[in-house]
């Protein structure tokens, strides 16, 4: 019966809008979620985590007394519906403070709109890497890490595995990717690092949705690579793991992008996923003090957002909590400058996002020590970290293999600057002079 009740609530979400405590004296955050459709597992976990954290903040007095409010709109991960949801919600409840679409397609659709509307958009761990250049992309924040930083960190990790980056020379690395902008995004970084370190990069695309990969894995078996980087999404990931088992490729030598590194990616593959390694920009688990608080104060009070409470502490849930923490910290930072206890304007929230200083000590204060890496953003650097950690699936859970680590940051930053400058020239954008920004 409980399941049916929760399903009915899910049904309401499917109809388009689900809302919670909203009032004009609150800091309003539109939630462009996707809880149905092919990527529902990611959307429900991620936005569930964010809402759980927002509820925790409200339950403990808000941000200097300012409560958060939000309203959900179901995008089904569809770009046009995402844009529609944004347009529907952006002026509600006093106006949107910030927006997070969790979809590269929707993010591209909103790129020009958020700049026009002056609403900051975060793209946690996805989207175009050149948006890390805040001089050009004033309203976009790929906070934490971009695909380019992740690709560099992957090569760094593989270098460590073989005993040093110099030992990568002559190695074969396959980039098995979703044949889309998402899958192609890291290729320039892989190519640059292949040229620098002398490894051979073999690019093998997989047509959407990736539910059959036999030919790709036979090609991989024939190429006999040292490692396979899996840049997949959705059904492509368990299919890749099963296909690897089918041709006898060791899962320990497969390294997945963070969107291929959740429980939803490995559980369907069963035993075929054991030993598989993936990148992550946050750590899963329920032992972090903040997760314990959510468990006791939110789920204990029956206000948890996850339909299945056993998903607490899962990869997507903790990612959502981390997103919530960063947004709240940005609003808090803005309040420090523009007035404590006041509702911040979108531009003030943007300023907060641009002045994040989540040091290890501050993360510990928030009850999330080692849950995510330190983040320090600036006018020029909207990424603020570039660090990921690597984790291995043992059949029951993801176990950490490394601390948070970065790759060749100098190379990545140079590429970001070049790409952003090209974008600015195309769009006739005059880059900001960060020395004159407050």
């Amino acid at each position, binding site marked *: 019966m409980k399941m049916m009740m929760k399903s009915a609530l899910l049904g309401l979400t499917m109809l388009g809008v689900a809302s919670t405590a909203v009032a004009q004296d609150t800091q309003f955050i539109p939630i462009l979620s996707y809880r149905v459709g092919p990527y529902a597992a990611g959307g429900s976990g991620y936005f569930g985590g964010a809402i759980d954290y927002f509820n925790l903040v409200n339950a403990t007095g808000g941000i200097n007394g300012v409560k958060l409010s939000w309203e959900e709109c179901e995008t089904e991960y569809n770009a046009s519906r995402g844009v529609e949801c944004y347009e529907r919600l952006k002026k509600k409840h006093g106006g949107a403070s910030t927006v997070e679409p969790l979809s590269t397609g929707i993010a591209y659709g909103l790129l020009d709109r958020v700049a026009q509307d002056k609403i900051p958009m975060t793209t946690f761990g996805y989207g175009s890497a050149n948006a890390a250049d805040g001089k050009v992309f004033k309203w976009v924040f790929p906070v934490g890490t971009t695909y380019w930083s992740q690709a560099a960190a992957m090569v760094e990790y593989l270098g460590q595995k073989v005993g040093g980056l110099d030992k990568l020379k002559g190695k074969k690395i396959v980039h098995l990717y979703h044949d889309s902008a998402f899958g192609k995004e890291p290729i320039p970084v892989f190519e640059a690092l292949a040229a620098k370190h002398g490894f051979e990069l073999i690019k093998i695309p997989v047509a959407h949705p990736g539910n059959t990969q036999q030919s790709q894995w036979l090609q991989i078996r024939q190429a006999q690579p040292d490692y396979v980087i899996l840049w997949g999404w959705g*059904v492509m990931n368990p299919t890749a793991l099963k296909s690897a088992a089918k041709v006898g490729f060791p899962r320990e030598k497969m390294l997945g992008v963070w969107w291929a590194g959740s429980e939803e990616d490995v559980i369907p593959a069963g035993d075929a996923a054991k030993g598989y390694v993936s990148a992550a920009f946050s750590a899963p688990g329920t032992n972090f003090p903040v997760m314990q608080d959510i468990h006791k104060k939110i789920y204990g009070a029956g206000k948890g957002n996850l339909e299945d409470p056993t998903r607490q502490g899962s990869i997507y849930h903790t990612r959502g909590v981390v997103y919530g923490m960063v947004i709240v910290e940005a609003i808090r930072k803005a309040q420090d400058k523009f007035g404590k206890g006041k509702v911040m304007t979108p531009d003030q929230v943007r300023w907060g996002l641009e002045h994040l200083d989540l040091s290890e000590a501050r993360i510990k204060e928030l009850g999330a020590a080692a849950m995510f890496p330190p983040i320090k953003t600036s006018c020029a650097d909207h990424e603020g970290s570039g660090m990921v950690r690597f984790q291995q699936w043992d059949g029951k859970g993801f176990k950490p293999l490394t601390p948070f680590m970065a790759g060749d940051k100098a190379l990545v930053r140079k590429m970001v600057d070049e790409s952003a400058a090209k974008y600015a020239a195309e769009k006739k954008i005059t880059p900001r002079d960060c020395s004159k920004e407050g």
Partner: protein
Amino acid sequence: MTFFFEVLIGGLLSGVMYSLVALGFVLIYKASGVFNFAQGAMVYFAAITFVGVTEFDISPWIAFPISLIVMVVLGLVVEKVVLRPLVNQPQITLFMVTIGLAFFIEGLAQLMWGANVRGLELGLQDVPLEWVSERWGMSISKFDLAAAGVAAILVTSLALLFNRTRIGRALRAVADDHQAALAVGIPLQQIWGIVWGVAGFVALVAGLLWGSRNGVQFALTFVALKALPVLILGGFESIPGAIVGGLIIGATEKLAEVYIGPMVGGGIEGWFPYMLALVFLLVRPEGLFGEKIIRRV
């Protein structure tokens, strides 16, 4: 040369998996002349119902008949509520109805069982046969061979049903002309109910095999896309055609991906079967095994 045969055999076995989905389309098309756009949604619905039932600590052996009953009931409800009021309506109307039905079934599945991704172990290991690997250096999956066996049993049973039974003859008569079939006393509603029930059974089998390979998730609805070129090639109303079409599509798409793909940047598996089907349409519009339509003008 060994690699070529490995790709070819793997492709043929993949094609069998496509055929399993195509069979559901063929059944409904044969009986009603309707292209059932909701077949992919039925595959997903069947698989998630099976897994959902097992989550109540019910044995898979009991979950299977329960899921089968659910699928048959779904088929009967579709017939009674959706199709019966539309007897003798243009085929495009029936087709449009199945599009709506697809969205309804997808939503219903998620409403009933949630949208979480689930694993499904059928006890069939998707690993290479050792003796084949050792003797010929080829990787042939045990799972694929088992799926081929299941498909062979299904096709034989369905072919017998259609060709050797009264119900089969009635099905063929209904497919030819609804009104004429009614006029000679064939119970149209009953026939459609049987067909939708059997299509539900085929969807359950396909859903379990595909779900076991890819996980039980919404993306199962996409397997229908793999069945379309199979149908165009094999013919919309031929059960053997679904199998032969599946084998051709499976083999050619894998060979094309491996041998032509690298020349054009790869990732051609998604569209190559459609291009092949399109070319085939120009030469033989009714498909390999489809009935040639001759109309007096």
